[in-house]
């Protein structure tokens, strides 16, 4: 039933959604670390971290449940994790293991519903409304069955936290209540009790600045937030967000949109703080090659590029340009990127490079150029891509990248799901 049926003409007295819960949010607990423990039983029950690099400055991207219990957190440096627990085991990511588990989990979930969205490598949202699995079982029993099947079909060490509600936001919130291996529901019968136990900043999307905005309108708790009329929220947020929050907290769906891909990008955290152009440009080319290879594989070209640099001192520089020509060849995109790199603060040690392209266009027939043989270029890139597709990436590469073998390894984007489409659809 649509929320419009429940809304008064002035939209101020919307009640909590009385419909049954059909939305399920699934989250693999400490995903990468748990998968590593599944892979190697000797690691089970021990504090371990998966880090971008195993060197002291490497960033922890996934601590195991045991490591979390002793205070090791995502984003810490390896040396800090070792200070907390000197014998912590450090592993570097093995993306194909994680993708494989993601696909296995997707296969299980697809046997319950086709209305499924992968929010990231370790998070799925299912809508079970109208699906046969709910004819004989409650949604909680379906969740229990999924948990069991994950243990039987993927691995006995794998656990997921499940949240159930009437919308995606509350289902995700519910999934965070009892980690690991939780199963919680937020519905019309318990939302008041649940909200009374939460702080404003426990809500995903409410951090200190938004909390401050709400505080300015005498909203100090989630229950206050829920009980606030829409005009009060409008005065706090001064945007359409006020309305979205008004609906979210009442269990009505407002987050069920999917954005289409508008850009391709790759980034790389440098193992050493490089600052001169000679060191940075080969890495830049490798990033551009990775990005443009994916772009061409999707049968797209670009008319806009963007470069961002994060420096060791915490500062940030970025610039994007729309290009007059349609680009597809790594060399042409690299030339434009190099031009942008020249505009940055060269001489300052760089921590991370990020390249992306936007203004994507379908790769149909090409605009011929007066001085450049575009068709020849197309054939050359097609041939190189075909060889790399057949024999593996970077079998044939540009000379500039000759010493970059150890740079820009395969990684899974944080929170991103767009790259998952690329290997899922293959």
């Amino acid at each position, binding site marked *: 039933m649509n929320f419009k049926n429940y809304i008064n003409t002035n939209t101020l007295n919307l009640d909590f959604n009385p419909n049954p819960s059909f939305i399920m949010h699934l989250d693999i607990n400490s995903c990468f670390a748990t998968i590593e423990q599944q892979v*190697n039983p*000797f*690691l089970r029950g*021990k504090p371990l971290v998966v880090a971008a690099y195993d060197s002291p400055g490497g960033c922890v991207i996934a601590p195991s449940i045991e490591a979390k219990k002793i205070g090791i957190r995502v984003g810490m440096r390896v040396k800090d994790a070792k200070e907390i627990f000197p014998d912590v085991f450090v592993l570097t990511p093995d993306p*194909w293991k994680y993708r494989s*588990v993601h696909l296995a989990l997707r296969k299980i979930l697809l046997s319950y519903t086709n209305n499924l969205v992968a929010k990231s490598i370790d998070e799925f949202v299912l809508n079970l409304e109208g699906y046969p699995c709910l004819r004989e079982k409650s949604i909680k029993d379906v969740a229990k069955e999924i948990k069991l099947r994950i243990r039987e079909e993927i691995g006995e060490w794998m656990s997921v936290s499940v949240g159930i509600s009437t919308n995606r936001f509350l289902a995700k919130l519910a999934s965070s209540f009892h980690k690991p291996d939780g199963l919680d529901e937020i519905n019309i019968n318990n939302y008041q009790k649940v909200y009374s136990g939460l702080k404003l900043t426990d809500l995903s999307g409410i951090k200190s600045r938004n909390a401050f905005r709400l505080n300015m309108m005498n909203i100090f708790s989630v229950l206050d937030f829920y009980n606030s009329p829409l005009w009060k929220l409008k005065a706090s947020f001064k945007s359409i967000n006020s309305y979205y929050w008004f609906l979210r907290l009442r269990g009505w769906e407002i987050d069920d949109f999917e954005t289409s891909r508008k850009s391709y990008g790759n980034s790389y955290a440098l193992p050493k703080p490089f600052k001169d152009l000679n060191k940075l440009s080969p890495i830049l080319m490798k990033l551009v090659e990775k990005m443009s290879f994916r772009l061409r594989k999707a049968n797209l070209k670009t008319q806009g590029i963007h470069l961002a640099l994060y420096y060791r001192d915490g500062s940030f520089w970025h610039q994007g340009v729309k290009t007059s020509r349609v680009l597809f060849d790594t060399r042409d995109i690299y030339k434009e990127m190099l031009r942008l790199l020249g505009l940055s603060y060269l001489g300052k040690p760089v921590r991370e490079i990020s390249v992306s392209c936007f203004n994507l266009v379908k790769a149909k027939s090409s605009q011929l150029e007066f001085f450049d043989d575009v068709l020849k270029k197309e054939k050359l890139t097609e041939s190189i891509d075909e060889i790399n*597709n057949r024999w593996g990436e970077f079998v044939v590469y540009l000379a500039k990248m000759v010493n970059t073998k150890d740079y820009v390894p395969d990684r899974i984007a944080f929170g991103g799901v767009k790259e998952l489409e690329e290997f899922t659809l293959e």
Partner: protein
Amino acid sequence: MIQKIDSPVSVKLVFDSKEKRVFPEEIIWNEKVYSIVKLGLHHTFKKGKVLYHAFSVTSKTLFFKLILNTETLHWNLEQIADEF
């Protein structure tokens, strides 16, 4: 401690048609026979068009990561680790 190996290895792989289950039962490496007691994870990946199967397994005392190249049907030992 985990050690990278990259060495050819002999593997006895068993397929159970009833359970639809594949299990590397035994490996011979460095002229020693290791009975496999547990399969941690089986996953696949591609390098170019070649499909590889990765079997992460353990004997009583060691962990092994075995890779099967489906084009050559050759096995490679990629990693070993002992109990930590």
